[in-house]
């Protein structure tokens, strides 16, 4: 019998989207001996390949690129720096000792990595996740699937498309469908405010006269073989249907943009501790998870609204993973960071307190003119004014290392008037 060969690498990056590419390039540049990206699709770039709209890079590169253009920058960097890529290759298992079982047309094999970076991204919530009653006709799609069909495969999904949920992809696809000649009678959003960025509400809906109905949802899907319409209803402040508010909207397609789920099956298999709020691993300021040598970045860690921050976050994870591969350790992170009043979550959840930290967080509800305050006991560590706050816009702050001197083991982030 042939002895099974195990490939040894410094850094294994799972997923070749924006996070994975940025992490791998950073690791390779930092001097990691062998860096591999393992990507289950047939090319690098991930979801950017189907995001043909522009607006990527406004924060980090000072210009608005389309998704494929932004991706190509990192694809070229990966090639130039010498990152190895296994395409059409799926990771089946990950152990806490950082041994990966991977599968491709060549068969099943093993890779042992000194560091692993989890960059699997996220997937869309589907009809099943939100439980809309009715038959199961053809014509119900998630926004990302519509985007793939239209922008990659040249397939139309329908002629009259109601959109449920106002996530960014849904808003962008409402515009895209309109440009391609489909009718979009409305976008319904169950919350009293949009889930997507304001700029997308303006440039995707208002520009095209598409109405956005807030506090409204789809309560029934009609049609047996193909969607023939949906019933919309107003949702009251306590979550119930407002009596008399039901109305039928005829359509042949329902497109869902109702949230994203961080994809962490592999993290679970390895025993990585996950946050119930973000759905991603609990990490420290080096983006290291609860298992030493396993790191996480991008939408697998927390769902982002801007790719610019995914790239930055993953770059840091790549550097940390390289340091771990070389030295076998990173500074201990003993200071716990918790969300306080008005804050839904904050990442990282633990910090070492020895160096500057870029915090990302989201607020609970839309708000104006508030201070974001980092507090340790009664001591204010950092205070920043924010004019506009919305759950759809991730808030990011850098806090310098000196600020963490002489603070306790607990750091709280909250909104103050």
């Amino acid at each position, binding site marked *: 019998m042939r002895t099974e060969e195990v490939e040894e690498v410094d850094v294994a990056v799972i997923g070749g989207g924006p996070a994975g590419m940025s992490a791998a390039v950073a690791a390779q540049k930092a001097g990691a001996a062998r860096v591999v990206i393992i990507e289950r699709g047939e090319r690098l770039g991930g979801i950017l*390949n189907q995001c*043909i*709209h*522009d*607006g990527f890079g*406004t*924060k980090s590169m000072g210009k*608005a*690129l*389309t*998704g*494929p*253009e932004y991706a*190509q920058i990192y694809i070229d960097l990966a090639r130039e720096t010498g990152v190895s890529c296994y395409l059409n290759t799926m990771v089946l298992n990950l152990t806490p000792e950082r041994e990966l079982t991977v599968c491709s047309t060549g068969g099943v094999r093993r890779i042992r990595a000194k560091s692993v970076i989890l960059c699997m991204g996220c997937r869309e919530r589907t009809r099943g996740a939100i439980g809309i009653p009715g038959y199961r006709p053809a014509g119900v799609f998630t926004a990302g699937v519509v985007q793939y069909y*239209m*922008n*990659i*495969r*040249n397939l139309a999904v329908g002629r009259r498309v109601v959109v449920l949920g106002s996530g960014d992809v849904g808003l962008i696809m409402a515009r*895209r469908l309109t*440009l*391609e*000649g489909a009718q979009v009678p409305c976008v319904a959003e169950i919350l009293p405010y949009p889930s997507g*960025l*304001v*700029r997308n*509400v*303006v*440039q995707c809906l208002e*520009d095209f006269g598409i109405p956005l109905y807030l506090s409204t949802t789809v309560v029934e899907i009609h049609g047996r073989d193909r969607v023939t319409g949906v019933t919309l209803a107003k949702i009251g402040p306590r979550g119930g249907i407002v009596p008399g508010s039901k109305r039928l909207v005829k359509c042949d397609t329902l497109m869902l943009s109702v949230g994203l789920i961080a994809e962490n099956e592999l993290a679970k298999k390895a025993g990585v501790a996950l946050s119930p709020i973000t759905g991603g691993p609990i990490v420290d300021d080096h983006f290291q998870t609860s298992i030493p040598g396993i790191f996480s970045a991008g939408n697998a860690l927390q769902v982002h*609204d*801007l790719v610019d921050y995914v790239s930055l976050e993953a770059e840091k994870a790549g550097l940390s993973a390289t340091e771990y591969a070389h030295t076998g350790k990173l500074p201990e992170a003993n200071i716990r960071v918790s969300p306080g009043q008005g804050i839904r979550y904050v990442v990282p959840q633990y910090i070492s307190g020895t160096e500057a930290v870029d915090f990302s967080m989201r607020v609970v509800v839309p708000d104006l003119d508030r201070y974001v305050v980092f507090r340790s006991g009664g001591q204010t560590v950092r205070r920043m004014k924010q*004019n*506009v706050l919305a759950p759809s*816009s991730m808030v990011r702050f850098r806090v310098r290392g000196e600020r963490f001197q002489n603070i306790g083991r607990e750091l709280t982030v909250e909104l103050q008037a």
Partner: protein
Amino acid sequence: MNGQFTCVVCPTGCVVNAEWNETELLSTDHAQCKLSWDYVRGEIFDPRRTVTTTVRVDDGDLPLVSVKSDPPVPKRTVFEVMQHLSHVVVKAPVNIGDIVVTNVLDTGSNIVATKRIQRKV
């Protein structure tokens, strides 16, 4: 004249109150940066949009190549540009930056490829 605009230059989405006359923008308030000035002036006097869409590819490893208008086209021409592009077919290979249509509909804008498409093997 006056009115309210939501600046879309960056993801912050500042709400800007603006005042203007027949020929120029007079004042804006409430924006966090200076970029909103040019955006608001454009919205009032010459609104433009970057059209991002796809055109068909012959012999490509994918059936479509993504494209954009560069510079942005006048907003009123967006649907005409879409209509025009529905008849365009390019031949693989295509590289980022390749001009797919020069001076589309006399707008002064080119339609430029934003994705690399290789020849089908």
